């Protein structure tokens, strides 16, 4: 039995029918454990976003199954899928997924409002401190630098204590030093908080900071055991 937090087994995803059909994922197998920072690397159009949307329950695979903590996500209602995303998954999107009219602290408060619980002030302050955001906790997203915004997105994703964090090209809008900073922080958070973090990227320079690397090309996904130093 697998102990994976998130596992995708024999996933196929096709768009369209007949000779215009596109196979975005072809028998993809994937797993991530708690405390692991996994990269999925591949060129544009290779199926990375399709993979993330299936893992997040935003799209259903043509065949195969997604397991979260050993439980299959099948035939969920729209409401259950929303609850799944809210409770089990933390998202970090390409550019900012922050809400423009909420301050950094309020981004956390919104999560609490949705979960019908009081503001977890000490948890929020700890995360802000960890990610060097204490000085900007009352700032709005448009007052932050690109790097700060992505750090807030990381903090917000961790704040709800999800099973797994999915990051879709989180460094796409950052320069190299800031990209490396963000990736190092993701790695540190995975290890410190024993979180499963999956990062999709097309940037080769970032993979040295990851524990496991999957390569994807034309929908074919393979685990690359030579990529990381360990």
């Amino acid at each position, binding site marked *: 039995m697998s102990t994976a937090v998130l596992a995708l087994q024999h996933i196929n995803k096709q768009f369209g029918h007949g000779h215009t059909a596109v196979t975005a994922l072809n028998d993809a197998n994937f797993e991530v454990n708690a405390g692991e920072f996994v990269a999925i690397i591949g060129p544009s159009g290779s199926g990375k976003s399709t993979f993330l949307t299936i893992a997040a329950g935003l799209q259903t695979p043509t065949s195969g199954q997604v397991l979260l903590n050993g439980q299959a996500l099948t035939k969920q209602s729209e409401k259950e899928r929303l609850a799944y995303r809210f409770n089990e998954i933390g998202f970090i999107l390409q550019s900012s997924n922050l*809400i423009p*009219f909420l301050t950094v602290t309020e981004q956390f408060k919104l999560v609490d409002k949705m979960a019908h619980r009081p503001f977890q002030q000490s948890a929020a302050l700890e995360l802000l401190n960890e990610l060097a955001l204490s000085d900007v906790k009352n700032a709005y997203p448009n007052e932050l630098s690109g790097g700060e915004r992505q750090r807030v997105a990381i903090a917000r994703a961790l704040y709800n204590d999800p099973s797994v964090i999915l990051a879709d090209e989180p460094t796409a809008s950052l320069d190299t030093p800031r990209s490396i900073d963000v990736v190092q922080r993701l790695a540190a958070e995975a290890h410190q908080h024993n979180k499963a973090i999956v990062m999709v990227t097309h940037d080769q320079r970032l993979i040295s900071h990851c524990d496991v690397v999957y390569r994807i090309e034309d929908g074919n996904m393979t685990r690359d055991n030579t990529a990381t130093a360990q």
Partner: protein
Amino acid sequence: MYLGLKEMRHEKLRYSLLSGVLLLIALVVFMLAGLANGLSNGNRQAVDQWHATTVYLNKNANQTLSASQLTLADKKHLQGTKIAPLSNLSGTLRTSNNQLKTTASAFGTSRNSFLMPTVTSGHRINGKNQLLISAALKDQGYHLGQKVRIGTTKKTVKIVGTYAASTYSIAPTVYTDTATLNRLKGSPVTSGQQQPINAFVTKRSHFKTSKHGNLQRMSINTFIDNLPGYSAEQLTLNTMIYFLFVIALAVIGIFMFVLTLQKQALFGVLKVQGIGTSHIIAALLTQSIAMALIGIGLGLAITVGLAQIMPAGLPFVINWQAFGIYSLALLGAAVIGALLSWRTVAKIDPVVAIG
């Protein structure tokens, strides 16, 4: 709630603009409602004060009091309690030296009739050529003991009593007895059962037999609806008010829809994070209800303020019941306006936020 209110706080200008537009709409609604109510009062206040249920007019009078000709003797067709004859004369009330001149609605009825208003100063009518005047006339300078004329005759009557504010056909009322009113009208018969009158007004009554001469029975509400100009005035003003509800709905609906289109990407991101359509709609509802409440509240406050400084000639009367109903209607327009964006929000696909 949280999302909606935080966004309003951050985008104060944008949301105050819509609140301002709603304030203007609410203000016009309340002003029109006040005028409609004032005009309604001016037309029917005296009728309401009768607390009557049924009116009998001549069936050829087209349900109009002034066109209806009956005689006191027609009472033989009726059976019931509190049946009062009513005569009406609209004309100029003036003092004999012409120093005071006012358009007034004069009513004649029997001296002990239930239509006679309760006297607040002076005494009830107990003899010929006596007149009771309503409060507005007293305020204009008419006083007890004064001799006045009504209409074009040289005959005078003496003011013996005053009573509460009362209007009919947008003119203050005066009351006298049937015979005196007939003298003022210049009627050839001024005593006995053949005296002309315009109507019988009753509390509870019916025809004695199926033969009832040229009498026509109608409810007090039908009578009021047929007061000259009354229905047309009310319909005009109420139609304007109803159009304003449609305008409010369109303004809120379009405003919220445009904002929704602008925020599609953000809503997609919210959905990715598990914050679904119902939470987003709740935020839109919070915003439009909050804006409507601000607009309605300020609109009411300004209307009450303006009512204090309005010229006395303007027939403006605040009716809290109508204001309450119209406030709820505006709130309803805000709710529906926000819900018009529902489909658009529901169709936003979170998948587009990824990739």
